């Protein structure tokens, strides 16, 4: 039944046997965090090259064919391109490369634009690699455990994790539901692409109302089901999943720390 959301596959888990797949989700989250922070600390070409190599190696290790990334990338490609153009036109450094009456392009613009585009590209690749190589449930679990120290400060970490897990469970169901409702209203002559903006917004009501009503019904049913299954918060709760920090996770974090160190060195001494 899913038709309209056919192309929403960004970040869907791709099961494989690989070094990256086997990593502890906590290690993956920490590693990506380090990578992103330090990627934006230095703009030295050596650092960017290192980051590119790091991304490349991770890719090979993850054993996920490149075509899995492309389909969902259109939107992000546009953002990267826009950012590139913005920097290209807005930077007034360096030699003049092109001088038209309405716009001047400087060499600094080209460099600045390319740097930011490359960084964004690497960032997106690494981030999608995280979701492509980790089961959503493991990701939630990793986050819950990383947030654990916050529980002492009164942050409801268990509830947040449960919310994320329920969202993961129901997003596909809701997408399917939306598709069904859209189909049913289109069969009754609904038209979402005609008339003024106001008319088009109004045309969404026949979709949103049923969707809300269904979602409330689901939420109510789900709450009853959870109660019937003895759910009573985090008190006395044991866990089905157990994360295991292995040697490879330490190695991976080590590599990222070396990358961070090099970045800092280049930042400070150049």
């Amino acid at each position, binding site marked *: 039944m899913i038709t309209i959301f056919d192309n929403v596959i960004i970040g869907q888990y791709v099961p494989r046997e690989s070094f990256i797949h086997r990593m502890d989700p906590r290690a993956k989250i920490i590693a990506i965090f380090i990578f992103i922070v330090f990627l934006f600390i230095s703009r030295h070409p050596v650092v960017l090259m290192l980051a590119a190599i790091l991304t490349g190696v991770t890719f090979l290790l993850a054993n996920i064919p490149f075509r899995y990334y492309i389909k969902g990338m259109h939107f992000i490609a546009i953002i990267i391109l826009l950012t590139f153009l913005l920097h290209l036109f807005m930077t007034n450094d360096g030699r003049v490369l092109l001088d038209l009456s309405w716009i001047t392009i400087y060499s600094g613009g080209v460099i600045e634009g390319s740097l930011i585009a490359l960084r964004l590209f690497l960032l997106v690749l690494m981030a999608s690699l995280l979701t492509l190589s980790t*089961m959503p449930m493991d990701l939630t679990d990793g986050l819950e455990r990383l947030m654990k120290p916050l529980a002492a400060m009164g942050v409801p970490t268990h509830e947040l994790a449960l919310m994320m897990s329920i969202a993961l*469970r129901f997003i596909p169901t809701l997408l399917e539901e939306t598709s069904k409702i859209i189909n049913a209203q289109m069969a009754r002559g609904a038209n979402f692409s005609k008339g003024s903006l106001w008319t088009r917004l109004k045309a969404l009501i026949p979709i949103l109302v049923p969707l809300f009503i269904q979602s409330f019904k689901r939420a109510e049913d789900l709450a009853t089901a959870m*109660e019937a*299954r*003895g759910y*009573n918060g985090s008190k006395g*709760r044991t866990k*089905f999943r157990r994360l295991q920090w292995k040697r490879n996770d330490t190695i991976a974090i080590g590599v990222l720390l070396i990358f961070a160190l090099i970045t800092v060195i280049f930042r400070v001494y150049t």
Partner: protein
Amino acid sequence: MPNEISVCNLSFRYQDSTPYVLKDISLTVKKGEWLTILGPNGSGKSTLAKFFNALLIPLTGEVVSCGKNTVDSAEWSSIRRDVSMVFQNPDNQLVAPTVEDDVAFGLESAGIPYDEMHQRVKDCIQRLGLEGFEKTEPHNLSGGQKQRVALAGALALKPKVIVLDEATSMLDPQGRNEVLTIVRKLNKEDGVTIIAITHDVNEAIASDRVIVLNDGSIVYEGIPRELLANREILRANNLSSPFIVDVARELRKYQILIDENVLTHEELVNAICSYKRII
């Protein structure tokens, strides 16, 4: 045999201003029994179901489940472990994003230790024929498979009673068979007490006892055979009699001797063929 559940003079309405949904209900469910509660839509049967595991608490009357009075809130967790429930809509009762996580959900709540939990999840998944689906996301399962996951989650808690609240009404015939076959197995092999709430008369045939609920009152109690032969009760409660029973009744009009007890295909075929041999 001891009573697993006993309901005594239970009346209930959702608000003071609304009519009673349940009117002075008294019933008992014996250990190891398979009880069917039949009734048309709006008869109050799903509301009644929620009293068995303390999802609703009586204001008038009393419900005792597995020896524990449901008024006592300290017992709720333990009652819900003893009395598991499978609901109507397969999409709205699975909580976790994968099959094994969902089967484990109740065990996590009950604080079952790690090793035992894994053993039980594995056993239940195998028991319900869901091997190979451990990591599958619920939305990629068929309706029948989803209900089996829900049953696995219920079974993992080693309940004494399983309540099926119209658990097959949204399934296709294949899914319905899958679920009913397993329920039968749990009842016969594991001795789990089954309370099945349904509007499908055919589902009552295999059970030990039937209660018919209409407009909040119990209007009939007996064994399925007697109910299905009782055309007046069926008609008065908007229940359709099974096809086989109808055909047998028609044939009797033509002086063809067919036992009043005939309920299943096999029984009718045998009756017709032996009649053929006589004439």
